[in-house]
């Protein structure tokens, strides 16, 4: 029996540093219809099992799971006015029995649990509630960070925490390649790129201090176009991220890139990010076939000239445009050792590979040891989300992975925002 309740959380349409309203009403509503037609079959390695934990929940983005097994999901668009949903499986059958909506009037991407609180990010703020033992937050939310600039492109504010009380927030660049004329063929890149002053990086905050502002905070790393996928690696005590590479190389520079080359370039970069790191955007990109950073064509590159400005080499360059949307290091130790200290990356899947078929739409695993060394080729862990292919247009993909979270029992949750929104749950059942 599914119990579904929409509950008011916070209503502040114009997010500012002003105090926010407390939770007020509980309004029961009908369940949104789940889209079940042509639902895909997800393939996982032998010994694992996949359940559809929830369907029809809305535009699901990132997730966090509490110690009591409640799954908190941020919604990119309000579902009947609410920007988050809490899910719980009461009878242990792998399917959520309770769906409680909260965060009234909000829309967001990031969710995280830290120090007894549930954190949530809209495009312009990060707030938190006291984490309830069960169900949805009942306390008044606190504003942890406010004042992020409103922007269209790459506006989401995914975040993560370290073990020393810091909050790391991606502030994506509202740009493709820092062009003088936004996404126009023939436009040069601005030099120096002024966007980097307040975007295109990771900003670090105090995880437990209220009313912080980006302008007064510390930029931790730069040269990052947009990193939706970030997590703290607890085994090496470092931030890791995967970033979305630039779009439209062949469209803007057909003299240097064929459509086929442009479908696969640039590589989607996976990095270990230390304080002060510079990942190279917009002056360079990573060519995974050459194994080098190349000069961005907006800054004089021609597809063959190596970069001449700072930009650290990624650990891996995944195929172009796969769109890494979340990153997860497991912490419970409930799965085989192979999966314990490496990185799971959810790829949302491409839109920018035409006329080649669109790709990505999967969760991969990067095997790493506890010192952070990559110990083998990355492997596809969960696949088939898009449904029957080839996928020529992204709207034909049934599910597109957007978030990852680990339950206290070790289950891996994978969210998708299209076709009504879904959460898949992967468990290890042994051979």
């Amino acid at each position, binding site marked *: 029996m599914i119990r579904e309740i929409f509950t008011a959380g916070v209503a502040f349409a114009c997010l500012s540093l002003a105090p926010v309203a407390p939770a007020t009403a509980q309004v029961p509503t009908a369940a949104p219809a789940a889209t079940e037609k042509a639902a895909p079959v997800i393939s996982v390695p032998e010994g694992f099992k996949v359940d559809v934990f929830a369907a029809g929940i809305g*535009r699901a983005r990132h997730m966090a799971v509490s110690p009591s097994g409640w799954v908190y999901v941020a919604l*990119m*668009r309000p579902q009947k006015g609410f920007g988050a949903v809490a899910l719980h499986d009461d009878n242990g059958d792998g399917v959520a029995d309770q769906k409680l909506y909260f965060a009234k009037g909000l829309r967001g991407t990031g969710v995280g649990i830290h120090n007894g609180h549930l954190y949530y990010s809209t495009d312009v703020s990060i707030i938190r509630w006291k984490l309830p033992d069960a169900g949805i937050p009942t306390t008044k939310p606190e504003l942890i960070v406010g004042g992020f600039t*409103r922007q*269209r*492109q*790459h*506006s989401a504010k995914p975040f993560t925490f370290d073990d020393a009380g810091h909050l790391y927030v991606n502030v994506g660049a*509202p740009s493709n390649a820092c062009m003088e*004329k*936004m*996404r*126009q063929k023939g436009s040069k890149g601005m030099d120096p790129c002024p966007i980097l002053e307040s975007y295109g990086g990771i900003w670090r905050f105090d995880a437990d201090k209220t009313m912080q502002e980006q302008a007064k905070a510390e930029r931790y790393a730069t040269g990052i176009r947009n990193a939706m996928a970030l997590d703290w690696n607890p085994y090496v005590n470092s931030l890791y991220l995967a970033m979305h590479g630039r*779009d*439209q190389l062949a*469209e803007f520079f057909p003299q240097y890139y064929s459509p086929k080359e442009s479908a696969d370039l640039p590589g989607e970069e996976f990095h270990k990010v230390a304080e002060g790191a510079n990942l190279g955007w917009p002056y360079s990109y990573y060519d995974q076939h050459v194994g080098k950073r190349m000069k961005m064509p907006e800054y004089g590159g021609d597809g063959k000239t190596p970069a001449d400005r700072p930009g650290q080499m990624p650990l891996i360059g995944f195929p172009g445009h796969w769109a890494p949307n979340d990153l997860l290091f497991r912490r419970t130790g409930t799965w085989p050792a192979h999966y314990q200290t490496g990185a799971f990356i959810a790829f949302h899947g491409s*839109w*920018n590979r*035409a*006329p080649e078929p669109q790709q990505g739409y999967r969760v991969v695993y990067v095997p790493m040891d506890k010192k952070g060394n990559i110990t083998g080729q990355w492997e596809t862990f969960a696949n088939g989300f898009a449904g029957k292919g080839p996928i*020529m*247009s*992204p*709207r*034909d993909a049934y599910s*597109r992975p957007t978030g990852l979270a680990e339950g206290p029992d070790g289950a891996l949750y994978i969210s998708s*925002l*299209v076709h009504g929104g879904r959460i898949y749950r992967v468990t290890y059942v042994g051979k």
Partner: protein
Amino acid sequence: MWVNKLAILTLAAGLSGPAFAASTDKGHALYMANCGGCHQADGGGVPMMQPALIDSERANGEKGAVIDMILHGSAIIPMDESDYSNEMPSFSELSDDDIAEIATYVRTHFENHGGAVSADDVRARRAVRLPAVRN
């Protein structure tokens, strides 16, 4: 009677067919070069990022609506009213003829029946000053 009707239809198709087909080819090529990367070859767009053009209110509405989008891009749509996160640039540097071809292609394909747009229509819209809403 039936034969006459068919003959007239055939004649009409014979007269307008080749000219329309040539224009469609040019419109298709211009669409693919300038629009298809984001709005996709099938006009399906990208969920949450770039709008679909299929059975589109804008493409079936007044001529100026599609022309304005091509001339000004997403800057004419207030951020709060947009359900799409990517930005569309201005294509005002294209010629009036090319913009008319693209607008016609979009308004007569992807299940749209808005009808053709001329270079004169584009010229007329260029003269209109829209309120700046870039935000």
